[in-house]
């Protein structure tokens, strides 16, 4: 292997010859044995960049992404949540439906009561009752 080829490989694949193309490793090892100082300088130079590259950490997989990937497989949509997931889902759905119905009733009542009041009061009254309804959702869905 020529010096030039050794340098090209180090510049392309880095300072660890284990990462170089397999067919070139033996020739590289021979050059390293014959010219240790030259090869040490070239590899150490490339190795500094390798070390910096290693510090760029990959993204970590969130549990949500893992579950989404699993659930996207045919037949896995209901399995990942366990045998009770359907019932849980139905419970949450029923809770949301009940909360919507309750909200509608309260909203109609409030609009009757606050009809003559100023618009700012109507808004604040609606908001305070909306917060109260959040407890209903949790209670029904649990």
């Amino acid at each position, binding site marked *: 292997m020529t010096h030039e080829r050794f340098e090209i490989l180090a510049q392309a694949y880095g300072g660890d010859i284990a990462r170089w193309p397999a067919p070139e490793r033996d020739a590289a090892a021979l050059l390293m044995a014959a010219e240790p100082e030259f090869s040490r300088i070239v590899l150490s130079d490339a190795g500094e960049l390798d070390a910096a590259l290693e510090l760029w*950490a990959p993204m970590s997989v969130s549990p949500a992404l893992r579950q989404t990937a699993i659930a*996207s497989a045919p037949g896995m949509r209901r*399995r990942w949540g366990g045998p009770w997931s359907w019932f849980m889902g139905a419970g949450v759905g029923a809770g949301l439906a009940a909360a919507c119905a309750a909200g509608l009733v309260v909203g109609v009542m409030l609009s009757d009561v606050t009809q003559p009041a100023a618009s700012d009061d109507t808004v604040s009254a609606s908001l305070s009752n909306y917060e109260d309804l959040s407890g209903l959702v949790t209670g029904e869905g649990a």
Partner: protein
Amino acid sequence: MSDPDEELLTRVGEGDPAAVRALVARKLPRLLALAGRMLGDPAEAEDVAQETFVRAWKQARDWRPGVARFDTWLHRVALNLCYDRLRRRREVVTDTPPERADEGPAPDRGLEAKDVGDRVGAAMQRLPDRQREAIVLCHYQELSNIEAAALMGISVEALESLLGRGRRALRAALSDMVGG
């Protein structure tokens, strides 16, 4: 050509839930790392990883061993999705490409591992797409030069040229940390 994923794929094709989970555990971190490093955007990278799996499940039933390694095929799909997004970015941002400033080390503190990692990531995002792709495939995804060149549709010599130019650009961008 032996494919380490072949047995798992067969079980996925038969509808084995344990095999589905095992394939996700084996491939999702790899795909997310690939997309994250190609795009530099966590949300887009998650979308690409997710979309790649949607296509993988369709492919699993009809997978024919011996044509290509499944891992290589997954990389091809994910890279295509990444390039779709990179192309869209170029169409949206017409004449002012997003420039991520390399701020260098903070003056009041030394360079810690995360600082270096962030600067490497920023420098990688500034590379031309093909140089970044070559480095991501060879250095980070640890594909062989033949696999990486085949994925990119270029010769091994062209791959080595992209790798060399990319690494030289990175050295220049990180010259205060990487000597030479």
